């Protein structure tokens, strides 16, 4: 069965600092992996995706993620965050439907 675990429920960070949001997945088959961002009272926006190929995936807004098959991880990183990055971030694995992690609240402080 597929499952996703986001290891941090909240990540506080100062503006312009780097950040990593951690995601581990469990799957018995090849996976498609995604990161979505949800701003307050809004829908889910696709940040980036891993379908195959290069394990380093670049997305929108300066985010990137690295697929690590041996560690079954798909951590999201950004070298320098902005106040506007404050939002909820969801990691998801696709098995037809999307199975989401519990979400990580990124709080960027000035």
């Amino acid at each position: 069965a597929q499952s996703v675990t986001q290891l941090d429920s909240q990540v506080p960070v100062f503006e312009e600092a780097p950040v990593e949001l951690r995601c581990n997945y469990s799957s018995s088959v090849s996976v498609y992996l995604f990161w979505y961002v949800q701003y307050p009272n809004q829908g889910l926006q696709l940040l980036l995706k891993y379908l195959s190929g290069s394990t380093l995936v670049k997305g929108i807004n300066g985010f990137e993620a690295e697929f690590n098959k041996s560690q079954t991880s798909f951590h999201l990183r950004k070298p320098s965050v902005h106040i506007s990055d404050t939002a909820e971030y969801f990691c998801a694995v696709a098995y037809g439907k999307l199975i989401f992690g519990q979400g990580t609240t990124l709080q960027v402080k000035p």
Partner: protein
Amino acid sequence: AAGVIQSPRHLIKEKRETATLKCYPIPRHDTVYWYQQGPGQDPQFLISFYEKMQSDKGSIPDRFSAQQFSDYHSELNMSSLELGDSALYFCASGRALLGEQYFGPGTRLTVT
């Protein structure tokens, strides 16, 4: 670029009433998904359609039903509403072979 359209954006209903949520997928997408997101929770899969046929079913109550029509729009029908049905309901569309899904803005359902 066209996005997924959901209507209405907000809906207030009383207990035991019926609600219908509509979704208009991105053109040429062959798959539609419905998700429910409770307060402070991650989205939970309800049901999906591939080329207008139901393809998968999640934790969808028997009080809920859904269908996809010939023009590819989809409707989620919810009857005998309960307080616990208050949530954000998302529709997503995508192309099955590509695995990605694009979400609509959601319908916020409040049951009083």
